[in-house]
């Protein structure tokens, strides 16, 4: 940023380019103007005398309007939309676009643009412009079209040219994205695109090569391919219609549950494919028949228990062999098993981290939950809701929420200390209660497991009763998972949390604690008891997990049938006060998360568990859908769906995935695999597989590097130590950067607030001035002086921003005065053009002042001097015109204006030197000075000259104003 602005000031091309651009834009209508051309272009526009009062008088207003001065100008918006349809103008436009020689001035002007992030910058600009168009042409009577059409046409041409230029510079892909991102209608986009393409082809025709053509074709076909891929993906999208239906009736927050479910389903399909493809298929190909003992047969109960017959199939760890399968290629089952699971876990982790991080970025870092509550309510209106009843209900809910938020705000301050203490006591009590419930559940599970373990034997085949007894633990666990959360929801009703967010968080935390502690107890039991007792303990653990998954599924079904259906019946028939139940997204998602945790833990012990999970999720989707549409009503509270989703993904990652991963990792590292079954039989621990493999590799020439990496990277503590050190350093740096950014954001915000305050203050001032003015037209001069004096003092006081604005407003005021003078029937004053251009100069100055201020935090002095310059120029011109039109041309006055200008500037320069003794300001001063002198000198010649063409000058003024505005917009947006 700094280099940009500095460069701009040192580089005369900056100023030139601006003038040249303006010059060019109006050049085609200008060719009769004898003064046009070269560096003096600005001077021409700002002072060129014209007789077209109307153009001059109105044009600046158009530019000004967006500064909250609305309603003055009324040009219908139709102008903008009919634009592509007007043939003559389009012709002009193309004409001008193609005539631009892509030569030196062209490149210069583009090179001065901000080099960073061209597309972002551009869309910002363009967006700003589109908005400005809107604000310039509010609907209304089309009386003023005539005056401004030319000017606006020119302005838009110019902006469009700029846009086209920037688009041409982009790569094809970026360009397509950028064009797509323009907030315009398809027709306009088409127009822009055709221009860009035409420009490109006209450029290319000179340097035509076969290669360029080919690459263009290739990229086109790639793009087409991409489109068709996207389309194909959409065709394959699962449950699209159902999703739309749910979203249309219940809104996005309920839909997010189904989206999450679908996401999990995809996850499981992926893991199933991986496991099935790399572990099961090779085994089945080489050894298709499971080694089932002759006395074991399928009895039916296995579907629930997963024991018996299933124990000898590829369902569990025990069903896999440890051999190297010999066929066309050698396939080491041990390695395959180990690496498949490991890589799958790593991929899962990466996918989770990425989706979590992006979701956090979108929903938490940017979101500022405390500050914009009302807007969050207003902007969360679901456009996808199509059901008439749902719309009505949603409107009601929104109204209630709005009222609540209003009363909440009023209520918050009224809490007394005793009330606070009471609330605190209630929270504490319920937290204690829920924690003790959790602990109780964990303990009872542990004792139940011990009880079961005493009964169970390590026999090959169990009797039916024995088998059925294994169902006790999963039954109890699932029952707890079903019942205890209901208690938690009940607690929540008594607690009266002040915000809904806290309430949900409390609920979520309690549920997660419960589920995780139950799982932790089970894992502890499996690791420490089962692993020592059973000969093929991995399969036993796999069976236990299988049972848990199945029972969880059954209870989910029961839960949705009885939970939602029963409460619906109770709510509608028995106790109408309760009403139709809402779909509890949080509870349902937590159930899904729990189910997924089971699947992850089981991946090592039962590689095909994802298949069960896929089946389960698939059925669950339909059950939940039916239950939802039959029994539930849309949630009363909307909003926060996105944040909740982030929390769910985070929960899925943190306790669940991390817990499952550590459990599997512990198993692989520490526990001895069972000796009689499974791929790792005979090894000390599972991880030894890698060691054995590396030893094997050591014998093969050409693979020494793998051994080296294993010895020196994987097994060395130094490596991990260094890696963690580097990561910590990087984190620290990033943290510092964020802190800096935060400060900057605060500063910028403060600046905007100050700006706004200044604006309102000045507007008040202006209005009061306007009120007392009409009577004192004759005393205008004398009245203006003291104001300026005061403002001078003000500006020299150091508030660079505000004084720049003061100048702008003052210039505007002058313009108004001129207009008044004209309107009241005085002599026709052909000075409006120049006054308006003076105004625009002032605006430009203000803009630059602001830019620098934001960019550098230092150059307030230069900004100050510049604004003084601009004001003084405006003053000079104004006075000059006053004399030249009111009386005969008076060279003495002109020269006195020059003198005063010099004086002013000198003062400003001194100030600048005092504040910041840098060369930036003085160099700039000189540039400005030179230009000013040129201006002043030129003027006497022009005054007597007849009017050439009013519109170009007017339009150039407008364009300058637009440019200034655009810059302002850019800077403002970049601030965010």
């Amino acid at each position, binding site marked *: 940023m700094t280099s940009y602005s500095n460069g701009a000031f040192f580089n005369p091309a900056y100023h030139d380019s601006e003038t040249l651009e303006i010059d060019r834009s109006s050049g085609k209508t200008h060719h009769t103007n004898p003064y046009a051309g070269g560096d003096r272009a600005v001077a021409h526009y700002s002072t060129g005398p014209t007789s077209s009062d109307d153009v001059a008088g109105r044009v600046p207003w158009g530019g000004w309007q967006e500064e*909250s001065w609305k309603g003055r100008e009324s040009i219908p918006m139709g102008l903008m939309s009919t634009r592509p349809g007007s043939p003559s103008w389009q012709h002009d436009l193309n004409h001008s676009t193609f005539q631009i020689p892509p030569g030196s001035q062209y490149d210069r002007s583009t090179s001065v643009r901000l080099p960073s992030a061209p597309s972002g910058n551009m869309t910002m600009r363009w967006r700003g412009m589109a908005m400005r168009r*809107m604000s310039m042409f509010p609907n209304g009577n089309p009386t003023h079209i005539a005056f401004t059409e030319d000017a606006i046409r020119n302005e838009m041409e110019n902006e469009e040219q700029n846009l086209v230029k920037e688009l041409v510079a982009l790569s094809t892909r970026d360009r*397509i994205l950028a064009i797509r991102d323009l907030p315009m209608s398809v027709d306009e986009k088409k127009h822009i695109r055709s221009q860009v393409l035409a420009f490109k082809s006209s450029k290319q025709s000179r340097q035509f090569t076969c290669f360029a053509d080919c690459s263009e074709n290739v990229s086109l076909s790639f793009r*087409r391919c991409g489109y068709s891929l996207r*389309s194909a993906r959409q065709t394959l999208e699962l449950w699209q219609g159902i999703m739309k239906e749910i979203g249309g009736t219940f809104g996005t927050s309920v839909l997010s549950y189904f989206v999450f479910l679908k996401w999990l389903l995809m996850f499981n399909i992926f893991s199933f494919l991986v496991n099935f493809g790399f572990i099961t298929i090779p085994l089945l190909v080489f050894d298709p028949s499971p080694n089932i003992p002759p006395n074991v047969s399928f009895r039916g109960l296995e579907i629930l228990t997963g024991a018996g017959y299933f124990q000898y199939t590829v369902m569990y760890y025990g069903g896999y062999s440890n051999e190297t399968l010999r066929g066309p290629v050698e396939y080491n089952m041990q390695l395959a098993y180990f690496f498949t699971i490991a890589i799958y876990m790593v991929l899962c982790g990466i996918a989770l981290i990425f989706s979590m991080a992006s979701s956090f970025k979108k929903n938490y870092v940017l979101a500022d939950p405390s500050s914009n*509550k009302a807007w969050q309510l207003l902007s969360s*209106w679901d456009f996808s809701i*199509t059901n008439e009843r749902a719309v009505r209900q949603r409107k009601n809910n929104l109204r209630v929420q709005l009222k609540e938020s209003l009363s909440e705000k009023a209520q918050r301050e009224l809490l007394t200390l005793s009330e606070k203490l009471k609330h605190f006591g209630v929270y504490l009590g319920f937290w204690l209660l829920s924690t003790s419930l959790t602990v109780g559940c964990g303990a009872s599970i542990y004792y139940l497991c011990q009880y079961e373990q005493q009964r169970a034997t390590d026999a090959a085949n169990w009797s039916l009763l024995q088998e059925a007894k294994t169902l006790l633990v999963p039954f109890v666990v699932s029952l707890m998972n079903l019942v205890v959360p209901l208690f938690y929801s009940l607690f929540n009703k008594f607690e009266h949390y002040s915000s809904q967010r806290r309430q949900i968080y409390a609920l979520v935390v309690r549920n997660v604690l419960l589920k995780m502690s139950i799982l932790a107890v089970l894992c502890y039991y499996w690791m420490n008891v089962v692993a020592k007792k059973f000969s093929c303990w991995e399969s036993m653990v796999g069976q236990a997990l299988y049972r848990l998954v199945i029972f969880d599924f059954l209870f989910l079904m029961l839960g949705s049938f009885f939970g939602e259906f029963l409460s619906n019946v109770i709510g509608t028939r028995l106790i109408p006060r309760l009403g139709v139940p809402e779909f509890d997204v949080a509870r349902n998602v937590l159930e899904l998360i729990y189910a997924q945790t089971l699947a992850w833990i089981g991946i090592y012990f039962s590689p095909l568990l994802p298949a069960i999970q896929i089946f389960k999720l698939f059925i669950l989707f339909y059950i939940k859908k039916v239950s939802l549409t039959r029994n539930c009503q849309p949630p009363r509270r909307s909003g926060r769906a996105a944040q909740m989703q982030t929390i769910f993904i985070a929960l899925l990652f943190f306790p669940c995935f991390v817990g499952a991963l550590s459990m599997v990792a512990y198993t692989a590292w520490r526990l001895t695999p069972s000796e009689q079954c499974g791929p790792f039989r005979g090894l000390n621990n599972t991880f030894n597989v890698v060691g054995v493999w590396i030893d094997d590799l050591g014998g093969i020439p050409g693979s020494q590097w793998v051994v080296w990496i294993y010895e020196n990277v994987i097994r060395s503590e130094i490596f991990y130590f260094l890696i963690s050190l580097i990561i910590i350093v990087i984190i620290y740096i990033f943290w510092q950067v964020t802190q800096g950014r935060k400060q900057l954001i605060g500063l910028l915000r403060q600046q905007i607030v100050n700006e706004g305050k200044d604006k309102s203050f000045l507007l008040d001032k202006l209005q009061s001035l306007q009120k007392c003015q009409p009577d004192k037209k004759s005393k205008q001069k004398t009245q203006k002086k003291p104001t300026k004096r005061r403002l001078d003092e003000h500006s020299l006081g150091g508030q660079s921003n505000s004084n720049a604005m003061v100048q702008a407003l003052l210039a505007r005021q002058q313009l108004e005065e001129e207009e008044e003078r004209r309107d009241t029937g005085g002599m026709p004053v052909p000075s409006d053009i120049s006054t308006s251009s003076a105004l625009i100069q002032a605006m430009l100055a203000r803009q630059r002042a602001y830019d620098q201020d934001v960019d550098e935090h230092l150059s307030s002095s230069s900004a100050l001097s510049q604004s003084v310059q601009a004001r003084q120029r405006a003053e000079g011109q104004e006075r000059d015109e006053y004399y030249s039109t009111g009386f005969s041309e008076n060279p003495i006055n002109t020269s006195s204006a020059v003198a005063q200008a010099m004086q002013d500037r000198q003062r400003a320069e001194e100030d600048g030197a005092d504040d910041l003794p840098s060369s930036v300001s003085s160099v700039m001063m000189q540039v400005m000075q030179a230009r000013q002198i040129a201006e002043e000198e030129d003027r006497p010649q022009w005054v007597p000259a007849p009017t050439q063409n009013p519109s170009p000058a007017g339009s150039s003024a407008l364009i300058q104003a637009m440019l200034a505005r655009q810059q302002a917009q850019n800077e403002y947006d970049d601030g965010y």
Partner: protein
Amino acid sequence: MGTTASQLGKDLLSEYQELTFLTKQEILLAHKRFTELLTKDEKDLPNTRVPAERILTLPELKSNPFRKRICHVFSTSEQKDGSLTFEDFLDLLSAFSDSATLEIKSHYAFRIFDFDDDGTLDCGDLEKLVNCLTGETDETRLTTEEMRQLINNILEESDIDKDGTVNLSEFQHVISRSPDFVSSFKIVL
């Protein structure tokens, strides 16, 4: 599907794909739905405008409280009657599609909420917006006092430069902090 594809033309289709956020299926579906709205003799004419009343019979728009504004904003008609051509219709769907960027969405949302088309959201616009969202009838409306307080809150939250109105930048700023907006500003055919 083959017939609709041939009706639209392959080049046109890929052009639309390039210029909008829609996929091929979505464009074809949009075309199908749009031609269903046309009367028999209109079908032969190219670039027919469908009046807003007929557009609003689409179930996706029928019960939307902003339906009139949506038609108005996306219409390129010179009479400002809210009538849409097929391309306007595509624009609408593109802005409301899943893949549209936050920038596009917030831009159009701003224009939809800007009831008097003056480029800023002032108190009148905000009041209309709230009324639209809570229902227009007298008993569903907020009281004057509540409305005043609400608008004050809104301006306090979003009017950074304190000029009494919310302009596009301020609106986009505030929208970028409401994560639910992107997922809820969505219309799927």
